[in-house]
């Protein structure tokens, strides 16, 4: 591995896998699945090697590769990861095999399905490692295409509408992003995120933007705000932030459950990642101007989505809204660290806490939400597609292992101490209270509402009188138990020993806090 560029290899493995599965997999279903899984595990192995070789003492980029690509456009092949990128790589590499396992019962066009999942994985790896806008945008879009077709071809009855909705929302977001970065390129001649961050920190962004503002008779400050909004729109749709979330419930509910796991577990993280890696370093001055409305937008996302989840009857829709809710905490943390702190060391510590919380929450939510949707998939397999809150009852009696394990995942989602979900949310709130007291206080309401709908699921599905038709429902098979075991174990490990992740991201967090001082 020492002589091969690790990140390029990591991105190529799933791409090769996608081609191979499509080419060879036509022969037998089993072969296609096994090959896809093998490639996903190969990618996981490479990620683990990266994790092992990563130097946690440095907050900068590691495993960097820089090559000339399109000199005319100032485009370089520039990849690298810091703690944040590495964490996202690991999350993607873990969620993809889970999603494949959950898609085992797909019976139509199997090679194409698994090939699209691998292609999506390549898109994720590329997005989390690319540091040049052109290169990054290529993968950002590459991940959208498979997602669209996974929903369009294998989704539920309303799949056509859901897929079109996803596509349109994402396209609008992408176009906004593209235009914003084109304008930035025209003014600064740079596509590289690191260089653009440097330019912004040196205060050269506004003078550069004066070029276009001359033309349209508005100030450079205004131009910067508009560009910032373009980028914001692209990422806010992906996360999603209320009011840009309306594509999500239908998409999550209609997508085949394996795909939903990918959408929530990894693709939503692309949006949060975009905020952290791209928007925050380049536009922190502009974002700070609108910090208060942004904070309240995050609060609205947290509270309203949890409230909406209360009203849902479909398990997938409940978890879809719950996803919006959990990512709302990430956004709350991100917007709170925009506060100007100068050299105050106490507030810097709080910022570090909030950011660490955000990183952890991204990983934890990815893991937990994907696992929860997996349980829904297992439930659907047994019930013949039924997944309503009121369709079940008393399952504890017939499927105790299923209910026990899903209960753990539900409690993790609720944020029970000792499980992974708790640490991230705790750190976010710890950091946010001093930085943005009122928004943090109001969003506690979200925690409360989450507890209510999670307990409602426990009560309606697992307890109560057993419905006649489910008396024969089989419990988890040994294979399923084995497949679920790593995910559940990871929830406990991270809940009890979060240092495992915090150790890796700490330097990156510190560097970000340092950069966001002013």
């Amino acid at each position, binding site marked *: 591995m020492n002589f091969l560029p690790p990140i390029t290899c990591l991105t190529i493995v799933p791409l090769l896998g996608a081609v191979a599965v499509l080419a060879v997999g036509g022969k037998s279903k089993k072969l296609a699945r096994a090959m896809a899984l093998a490639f996903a595990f190969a990618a996981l192995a490479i990620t683990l090697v990266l994790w092992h070789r990563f130097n946690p003492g440095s907050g900068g980029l590691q495993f960097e590769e820089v090559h*000339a*690509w*399109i*000199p*005319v*456009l100032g485009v370089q092949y520039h990849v690298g990861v810091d703690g944040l990128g590495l964490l996202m790589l690991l999350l993607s590499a873990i969620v993809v095999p889970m999603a494949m396992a959950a898609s085992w019962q797909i019976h139509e066009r199997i090679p194409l399905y698994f090939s699209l999942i691998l292609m999506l994985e390549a898109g994720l790896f590329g997005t989390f490692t690319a540091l040049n806008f*052109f290169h990054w*945008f*290529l993968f950002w*879009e*590459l991940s959208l*295409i498979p997602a669209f077709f996974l929903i*369009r071809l294998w989704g539920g009855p309303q799949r*056509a509408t859901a897929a079109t909705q996803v*596509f349109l929302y994402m*396209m609008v977001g992408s*176009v906004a992003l593209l*235009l914003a970065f*084109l304008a930035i*390129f*025209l003014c600064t001649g740079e596509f590289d995120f690191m260089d653009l961050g440097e330019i912004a920190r040196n205060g050269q962004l506004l003078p550069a933007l004066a070029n*276009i503002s001359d*033309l349209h008779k508005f100030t450079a400050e205004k131009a910067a705000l508009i560009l910032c909004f373009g980028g914001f729109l692209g990422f806010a749709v992906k996360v999603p932030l209320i009011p840009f979330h309306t594509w999500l419930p239908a998409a999550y509910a209609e997508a085949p459950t394996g795909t939903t796991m990918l959408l929530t577990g990894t693709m939503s993280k692309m949006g949060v990642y975009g905020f952290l890696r791209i928007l925050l370093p380049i536009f922190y001055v502009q974002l700070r101007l609108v910090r208060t409305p942004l904070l309240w937008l995050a609060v609205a996302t947290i509270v309203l989505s949890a409230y909406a989840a209360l009203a849902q009857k479909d398990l997938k829709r409940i978890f879809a809204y719950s996803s919006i809710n959990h990512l709302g905490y990430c956004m709350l943390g991100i917007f709170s660290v925009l506060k100007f702190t100068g050299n105050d060391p106490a507030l810097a510590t709080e910022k570090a806490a909030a950011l660490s919380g955000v990183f952890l929450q991204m990983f934890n939510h990815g893991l937990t939400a994907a696992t929860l949707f997996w349980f829904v998939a297992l439930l659907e397999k047994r019930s013949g597609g039924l997944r309503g809150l009121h369709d079940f009852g008393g399952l504890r009696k017939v499927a105790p292992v299923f209910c026990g394990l899903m209960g753990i995942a539900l409690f993790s989602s609720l944020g029970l101490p000792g499980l992974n979900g708790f640490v991230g949310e705790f750190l976010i709130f710890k950091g946010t209270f001093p930085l943005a007291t009122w928004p943090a206080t109001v969003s506690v309401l979200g925690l409360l509402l989450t507890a209510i709908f999670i307990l409602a699921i426990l009560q309606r599905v697992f307890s109560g009188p057993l419905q006649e038709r489910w008396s024969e429902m089989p419990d988890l098979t040994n294979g399923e138990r084995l497949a679920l075991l790593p995910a559940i174990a990871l929830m406990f490990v991270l809940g009890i020993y979060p240092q495992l992740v915090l150790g890796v991201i700490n330097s990156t967090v510190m560097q970000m806090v340092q950069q966001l001082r002013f």
Partner: protein
Amino acid sequence: MLAWTIYISFLGALALMLLPKGSVRVARILALLAAVAGFAVTLGGFIQQRSGELVTVARVPWVPSLGIEYHLAADGISLTLLLLTGIVAISGILFSWNIGHRTKDFFAFYLALIGGVYGVFLSFDLLLLFVFYEIAIIPKYFLIAIWGSTRREYAAMKLALYSFVGSAMVLIGLIAAYVVAGAKTMDLVQLARFPFPVHFQMWAFPLVFVGFGILAGLWPFHTWAPTGHVAAPTAASMLLAGVVMKLGAYGCLRVAMTLFPRGLGAWGFHVLGFGSWRDVFALLALIGIVYGAMVALVQKDFKFVIGYSSVSHMGFVLLGLMTLQQIGLDGAVLQMFSHGILAGLLFAVVGRMVYDRTHTRDLSKLETMHLSKVIPFAAVTFVLAGMASIGLPGFSGFVAELQVLIGAWRAFTLFAIFAGLGIVIGIAYTWRAMQKAFFGSPDQGSTTGDTGPLQPISMPERIGAIILVGTSVAVGLYPQLLLRVIVPALHTPVFDGLWRGSGR
């Protein structure tokens, strides 16, 4: 060596004509061999040439008394377009594997057209260029009139008339230039150095530019394009949209803009806000982009959607030329290549994969057939081609249109914004065509039964599609492949006048 591209094509055409009647198989293979040989020669030349500088291929006196020479040469721009011609020619033959009616004549005309196109891209003597340009028109007419479909005589005649009017305008301009220069030469490089009087350039430039622009689909002279593309048999549509439209754009750049660069300069007065021919043509190009896209959005015939999309995409080429920015011109040449590949691919899907099987191009009928299940390969190809054509990153269209847009932003900011609107409409019509043609809604599935089983996609079609998609992806991921020769070519002495004299 590159000159052999022309000879091979014409020799191939001759050999095909001499074949006995009914030798279908031999005709196909012979045609394919000729196309592959032409491509191989081009590729050899492309690899040999390191920098994109102008390299003379052949130069012998032709009509010494008039100073006319047989002068073939190639720079990076010619090479890029030669490569395009080679690739589209090969895949066009692969997509015409099923032609049964007068097979050998079909391929003979086809190769003659290719030979003419190669000739235009290689000529550096204006009269020679004009001769090859005319040679290319004749086979086009017959290809459409004999093997075409919908209203083929009308379309063939319209195309021929438009082409002849265009070439007449070009000819007048060229003769005038010859007379005014008085240097007894038709050599492009020498004439480009000649300082034509400004008032002469002011009328000669629009004349020649429009003359070539007609073939490039310049709005409002574009109307031959959709009808011609639709009526033509698949391979001819591929060549028409893929290569012949590029002849026009190439002529605009190579002849009109380099000979009469000061014709692009300011008039010194304003009419309706236009201050120069450059403003006028940039606006026409922009109208082409937006209008073509909007018309494509409402077509009922699948092939007309692609036909009008060609008008829209060629608008980007012309807009790129009018930016007079290095990056805009790079983008324009790259867009010529990219659109050539993608238009070829789209017409192949619509004409060969869909129409030859279903015998309808009516989108509302195709909607009921669920083609994505019946011929999945065609669906996948169209999705890929559509993504490339809407300018998704990773495909050739993105880099090309991006460069044009950046150039346009610097030259005419407002136009760049409207061109961006054209791209958005592009997404809409591609989306609509894809949904209707391949992913019809299930509730309209009641009439599925009457289509019967369709032929599976044949091997030549698969190979052709893979060649075209592969090329687009290769250029999209590594545009330096072509930009390596295009960028230096724009700095050869031929373009000095353009950079200096256009009054930027």
